[in-house]
């Protein structure tokens, strides 16, 4: 059953067209990875799905709801779409626990005590039961990113967007975040991930979409894309990635 449908999405910043008609679909429980060189429009594509960026033309449907429909409440839409950022973007003045409870309390109206319980569960789920009272500045990058994932999960979204979740991390911290993401994938979360993390893509992705200059050049399951890419551009990019030790 289709959860996300992206249809012929165009987006320009000034004269520069970043997305030149992108279309793809995801079923519930799918894990898709967007790959492509920097500037190819991957992050813009993600942000167009929860309307942090507005598209110029095209359509996006989430669970049958038109994301850009005139009656769509952006704030309600975003409760269904969790987002994890490259720079974590944890609320710097709040503890790990408070980062997770803020949305529960202020968006969903969950009472304080219940919000605290639920947030503690989500933090435990990402392996941070002992860090609930730490402030972001006191956490490592990997820990911060896991709080970021818990914060998004707490809203019980239908879809999780990951915008280069490991690229700001020191190499030795990448593993702990990838592990949490893999765990999430196994438990059936629908995930759209912008990442060059080959290990994750190979083991967890259902489909990989290769984006280049605003277009999806090639899509397919990881084994197909990694072993027998149809396009030279895909091949070139993936070879480059592998030789860089990803």
């Amino acid at each position, binding site marked *: 059953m289709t959860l996300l449908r992206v249809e012929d999405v165009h987006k320009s910043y000034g004269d520069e067209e970043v997305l030149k008609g992108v279309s793809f679909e995801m079923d519930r429980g799918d894990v898709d990875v967007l790959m492509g060189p920097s500037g190819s429009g991957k992050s813009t594509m993600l942000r167009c799905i*929860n309307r*942090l960026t507005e598209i110029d033309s095209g359509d996006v449907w989430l669970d049958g709801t038109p994301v850009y429909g005139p009656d769509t409440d952006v*704030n*309600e839409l*975003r*409760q269904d*779409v*969790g*987002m994890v*950022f490259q*720079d974590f*973007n*944890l*609320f*710097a*003045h709040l503890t790990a626990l408070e980062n997770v409870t*803020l*949305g529960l309390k*202020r*968006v969903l109206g969950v009472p304080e005590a219940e919000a605290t319980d639920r947030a503690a569960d989500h933090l435990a789920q990402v392996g941070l039961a002992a860090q609930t009272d730490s*402030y*972001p*500045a*006191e956490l490592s990058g990997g820990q911060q990113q896991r709080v970021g994932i818990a*914060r*998004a999960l707490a*809203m019980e979204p239908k879809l999780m967007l990951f915008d280069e979740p490991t690229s700001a991390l020191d190499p030795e911290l990448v593993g702990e975040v990838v592990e949490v993401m893999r765990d999430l994938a196994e438990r059936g979360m629908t995930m759209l991930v912008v990442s060059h993390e080959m290990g994750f893509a190979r083991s967890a992705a259902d489909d990989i979409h290769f984006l280049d200059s605003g277009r999806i050049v090639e899509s397919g399951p990881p084994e197909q894309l990694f072993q027998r890419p149809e396009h030279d551009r895909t091949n070139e990019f993936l070879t480059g990635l592998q030789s860089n030790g990803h």
Partner: protein
Amino acid sequence: MSAEEPSVADEVRTTVTVDTDRPWALVGLAAFWGWLLVRWTNDFLLPDGMAFPSEQSFFPAAPFSAAAESLGATAASLGLVGAPLDVLAGLLGFVAGAIPSLPALARGAWLTILLTVAGIAFGFVLAVPLSVARVYGGRGLRWLSLSYTELIRGTPLLAQLFVLYFGLPLTQIIREVPGVGVGFVPATAVWVAIIGFTLNSAAYQAEYIRSALESVDVGQLTAARSIGLSKVDGIRYVVLPQGLRYAIPGWSNELVYLIKYSSLAAFITVRELFFQAESIANDTFRYTELFVLAALFYLALVVSASLLMNLVEERTSVPGIGGKRQA
């Protein structure tokens, strides 16, 4: 005690947040505030029968002037050698001259503090929406906020007070309000001054808060929006709590300025600290003594204010945001 051993003073510094480097300043301030509080309680709260006469100083001036006189005489008889004694005699003479004016200055200090606290507090209430409008508002709101800030910051505070006091029918309106000027409720001119300082301080505080808001990473609001918070809620729960912490140092500056600028209220007949000092000086021709004394009062208020703001800054700091002593 060996050099490696952590001294008791180091221990204290990590737990006590007040500036322990200047114990003399703390002792002086404690004496100043103790005296002020006793004076206010006596003059404003105690019924006439029980109170010490409000025009009379707690301390007798006579012993000081007598001592000054005899020291001065001794100094004169010693010739050149007596010069240090002469200085001491001069100091005692200053104290003797200052003592009779202390009650009036205490009353003035009360109004100075009232004007400053009210100006900074009400100004803050206006400054937050002004700065948010400036950073996050649409074109119209931004323009409105900018115009207000520029108008206020571009014209003299004294001129603003004059417009409010003499130019607008504000005084007639306030005078009609029942209770104004009765008992504890300040008189009309004080209200006009509070309105003036509020409007003025709001513009300056808005500038401090604006630049603090702009220093909050944009990703913070993006993250807030991504979990479904509206823009207003994102600003309220995520951006402002951080921005206001960043604003505290600038805000402390504004408080210190306002303490001193509150002396301009004297020009619209508010009997605050400067007004009291000047009027006594006019009567007694002791200009130097009175203005030095008033300066010492302002200094004590300013130092108290900055100590207080340091405390606020440390108390509100969280790891990564605010606070001065992080390595």
